């Protein structure tokens, strides 16, 4: 277990270093990215520019700059933004995490529940019209660009039907911290949750259905039938329980990817200042330190999610558990 953790950790470090280098190089390959001019401000004199460049260490060789940046990011933790000067990037990312987590967690609950319901219903009515309808609906959900759906949802709930009883409760876009205003937190997130979940409900429903159908062909299901168990018990305790392995794996990876910035589009559309949005803004500004922090955070999350999934997998599937 310990060696497993250690080697995972090594792998994680490797990936993170790789990614940070790529980001760093991409940034310096970008024209117009000399942050000095933008840091210095409109119409700054050349002397000022030079001073700024020196202050920010932008006149040092690239490897030195990279090392310094990593040091300030990981060791001293005082790396500051190029755009919002003085803004420490680490707390910025940390502050954005609850927003993203709120969004993704809520949506995750919705789509897991929805996916299970859809998947089980479809598998049970396999080949009949309910199955077909659910699958087509699911596919439509999968096929919609999330930002488009979000825009439409905004149009409907914020403007067109805002004055009707249906949507009059909908607050302005933006995030309200749970600690300050739990009701507001919930209200602002309901529509984003549903929007994000729409995409995944179909996906998960389909995957679960396929996996259930596959599992239901298995010999052990026949054994369970021969044991005289009720269909419901067979489906839930033997079928679903076995299918859940694939389901949970997928959830872990998607969750990791979303928390790691994949929810960017939803965050942009719904004005949620989460990690994705912070990253997006930073990319727009070519704010290297922030990009660096968010990308590393994001990839950390993806790698970490991979790890958690492996552990969960082992937890759910006793055959893998022994490997630990």
């Amino acid at each position: 277990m310990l060696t497993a953790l250690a080697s995972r950790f090594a792998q994680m470090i490797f990936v993170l270093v790789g990614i940070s280098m790529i980001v760093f190089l991409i940034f310096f390959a970008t024209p117009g990215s000399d942050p000095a001019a933008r840091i210095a401000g409109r119409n700054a004199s050349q002397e000022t520019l030079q001073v700024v460049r020196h202050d920010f260490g932008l006149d040092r060789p690239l490897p030195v700059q990279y090392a310094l940046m990593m040091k300030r990011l990981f060791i001293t933790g005082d790396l500051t933004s190029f755009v919002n000067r003085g803004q420490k990037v680490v707390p910025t990312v940390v502050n954005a995490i609850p927003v993203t987590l709120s969004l993704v967690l809520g949506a995750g609950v919705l789509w897991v529940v929805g996916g299970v319901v859809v998947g089980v219903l479809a598998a049970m009515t396999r080949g009949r019209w309910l199955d077909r309808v659910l699958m087509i609906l699911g596919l439509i959900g999968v096929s919609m660009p999330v930002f488009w759906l979000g825009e439409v949802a905004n149009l409907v709930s914020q403007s067109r039907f805002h004055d009707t009883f249906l949507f009059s409760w909908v607050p302005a876009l933006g995030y309200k911290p749970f600690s300050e205003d739990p009701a507001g937190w919930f209200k602002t997130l309901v529509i984003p949750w549903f929007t994000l979940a729409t995409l995944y409900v179909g996906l998960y429903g389909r995957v679960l259905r396929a996996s259930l159908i596959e599992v239901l062909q298995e010999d052990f299901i026949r054994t369970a039938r021969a044991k005289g168990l009720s269909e419901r018990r067979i489906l839930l305790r033997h079928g679903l329980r076995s299918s859940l392995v694939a389901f949970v794996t997928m959830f872990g990876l998607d969750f990791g990817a979303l928390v790691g910035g994949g929810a960017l589009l939803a965050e942009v559309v719904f004005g949620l200042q989460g990690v994705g949005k912070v990253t997006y803004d930073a990319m727009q500004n070519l704010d290297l330190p922030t990009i660096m922090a968010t990308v590393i955070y994001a990839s950390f999350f993806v790698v970490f999610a991979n790890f958690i999934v492996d552990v969960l997998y082992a937890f759910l599937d006793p055959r893998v558990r022994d490997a630990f």
Partner: protein
Amino acid sequence: MPSDPSLLLDVRDLRVSFRSERGLVRAVDGVSFSVGRQEIVGLVGESGSGKTQTLLSLMGLIDDPNAIVEGEVRFLGEDLLRLPRKALQALRGGKIAMIFQDPMTSLTPVHRVGDQIVEQILAHKGGSRRAARDKALALLEAVRIANPTAVVARYPHELSGGMRQRVLIAMALSCDPALLLADEPTTALDVTVQAQILDLIGRLRGDFASSVILVTHDLGVVAEVADRVLVMYGGRVVEEGLMDEVFRDPLHPYTWGLFDSIPPLEGPRPRRLRSIPGNPPTLSSLPPGCAFGPRCRCRFDACSISPPVQRLGNRRFACYLSASQRATLRNAPNAGAAAVEGLS
């Protein structure tokens, strides 16, 4: 014919067919047989001859929506094919239990084996978990598992094939079934382990007062334990009789072929085996008449019409051959077959 009350199971004209793109596939085509109390009936036949479908249909376990199951299956007087779902469910795993071919895949991998046994006991007998657990331990002991307390807490993958098959048997026995359906229970096991399992099945009759239908493709396995044998080919029973009689004097050319195909383990070694030419039939394109006709070395024109079931004492077989023809053809060299074999 009224069903005999001493019979545990009486199957009449059982048919299992599947609707498919290429028409009706008759996997089981008019099979009739019966099982007495504490009797072990062996069901042999090649791959695809309908053995498994026969067993599954008895318990209503064919869940393919395209399947049609017809006929009559009387179990203790009740027609299983017409039993309501609930009643059938209560019967499954209760009065009738089944074990399957592949012990590696027949246990749910994500639950402990003990729980899987307990689950069945609770489903049929109710009672406390604790009692069910004790019962499970007793059963595991009965199927000669060395350390039952440790084994109940294990997951299937932690057990060897033989152990799993034992667990499955224990599970099948958990509700004292009157009839045990065993679908090739030893095929996936090594000979040494197979011997252990067969030994176990042979004891069931005494220890649990169960009858067994043992499906296999291995005549040797039947010879080890069965009282009576049914030989299936192409979805039909081609020969039936007491095991001793059938093995001593097989009546159907297919049964001959089966015996001849197995190299002997003792005595002189023949240079060549007398094999059955051709390939096992594809059910969707069975030849008209006798299904075995195209591969039969004794085939003649009448074979294009389904042969009637002949009776000889307790034995039945489906073939036109008369006793004298059989006597001459049984040990004759591959007379009519030469032309057929090369063409397979």
